């Protein structure tokens, strides 16, 4: 009986839709990565990570950040907010000197998706960019992320060089726009849409209100 019940719970978790629309270059999306990874572990759900392209005007080589008193004040505010919102993650973060090009990473995400490794891949990409100071506009960074999660870097290199996933990545970006995504991250937990970063405890409440409970609680 217990095995049957566990199987039912796992089936419900597999059906429960969790989707996150985000851009790798968004610091608030980086804060959401750890939360969504935790959610997947605790509730047994299988989140989808989808692209929302914040800055389509960024060239492939990236662009220098503005250095004006206003831009500096804005950066000071943003850093203070990130520290307040997620002090542990903030301590590990290195804010990039330039705005990076994210579309190539979206293509790599599609490649990882075809190999069933997209969820782990996105975490590796965020880590490389936000905690290790790498440029995600560079194919080498994406190949390194892929290698960390068991993807073949040589195969990914070909896919990126040949732009095999460009059309699919663009379609995904357009899909996000078509469904009215304007905040990054935008998080769908079942029937609930959350615009922007929120507290993990809010996600827990949203899950539980829709009948989803942590696996640990069910086991006890």
């Amino acid at each position, binding site marked *: 009986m217990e095995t049957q019940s566990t199987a039912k719970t796992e089936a419900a978790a597999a059906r429960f839709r969790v989707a996150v629309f985000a851009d790798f270059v968004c610091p*608030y999306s980086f804060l959401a990565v750890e939360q969504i990874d935790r959610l997947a572990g605790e509730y047994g759900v299988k989140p989808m990570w989808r692209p929302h392209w914040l800055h389509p005007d960024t060239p492939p080589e990236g662009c220098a950040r503005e250095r004006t008193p206003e831009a500096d004040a804005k950066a000071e505010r943003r850093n*203070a907010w990130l520290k307040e919102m997620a002090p542990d993650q903030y301590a590990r973060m290195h804010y990039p000197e330039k705005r990076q090009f994210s579309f190539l990473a979206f293509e790599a995400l599609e490649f990882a998706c075809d190999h069933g490794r997209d969820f782990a891949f996105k975490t590796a990409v965020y880590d490389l960019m936000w905690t290790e100071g790498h440029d995600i506009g560079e194919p080498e960074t994406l190949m390194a992320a892929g290698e960390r999660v068991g993807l073949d870097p040589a195969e990914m290199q070909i896919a990126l060089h040949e732009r095999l996933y460009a059309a699919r990545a663009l379609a995904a970006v357009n899909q996000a726009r078509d469904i009215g995504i304007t*905040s990054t991250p935008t998080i769908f937990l079942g029937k609930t849409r959350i615009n*922007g*970063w929120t*507290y993990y405890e809010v996600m827990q409440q949203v899950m539980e209100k829709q009948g989803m409970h942590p696996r640990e609680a069910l086991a006890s």
Partner: protein
Amino acid sequence: MQQTYIVDSANAPWKRGSTEGITFACQVLLSGEDGGPEALRFRFDDSPSVYGHMHLTSQFQLLLNGAMDFPRGVKHLEALAIHYTDHNMPYGPFAVSGGHDMLVLHPKAGGIIAMSNLDARRQIHLGGRIFAALAADSAWQPLPGVPDGSFKLLMPPDYGPAAVIVKAPAHASLAMPAAEFGRYEVVLAGSVIMEGKPIAAPGFRYVRGEQPADPLVTAEHGATVAFLSFDRDVLAGGITGEGLAVEAAEAMARAI
């Protein structure tokens, strides 16, 4: 029961205070200790980050001067602006700058809870509303029945809570419907006669009841008045004397 409170903010005493390292000057205009409304005026010293927090009751913030910046939603507010939240609806962190001056208006005592409190995060109102708008973004419209009068809506008409700014010449009578859930009527410019006494900016009246209150009447040089009406969210939350509410009340008492 009809409730009416009149406050002459311009002549209320100021004191210095701080909360979690954030410093400010503050006026306690209505304490809420009698079960009625709670109104405070804050002038935060410039800060890049006032910590994320929530109150246990509905709230209008009326930004009278300076600016507030938020990471989400309406990201930049400059006076004159409003910021509304339902009970247990967190907001911030946010930055304050430029000679910040703000009225914090509650229908009842609401306390304050920092969002670093993990237990509090589990009591966030999931369906809670949050709304912000700059007055400069709304257009003036002619005010029916008052020649040379005008008004602007700061919130969508069917939103629930309502925010309207009315500008009227001298001796105009500003009649409003009954305020079932409570309404702050804040003088923004000029002066208004309240119970025979002229009240200048940013003085106000708070009314609540099933019958319409006596209309405000503008004084000799006319006035601009913000009417900030609550809806049924005021019936929820509050300082109940249990759990989180005790903590919220104590934190507010420490801060002011």
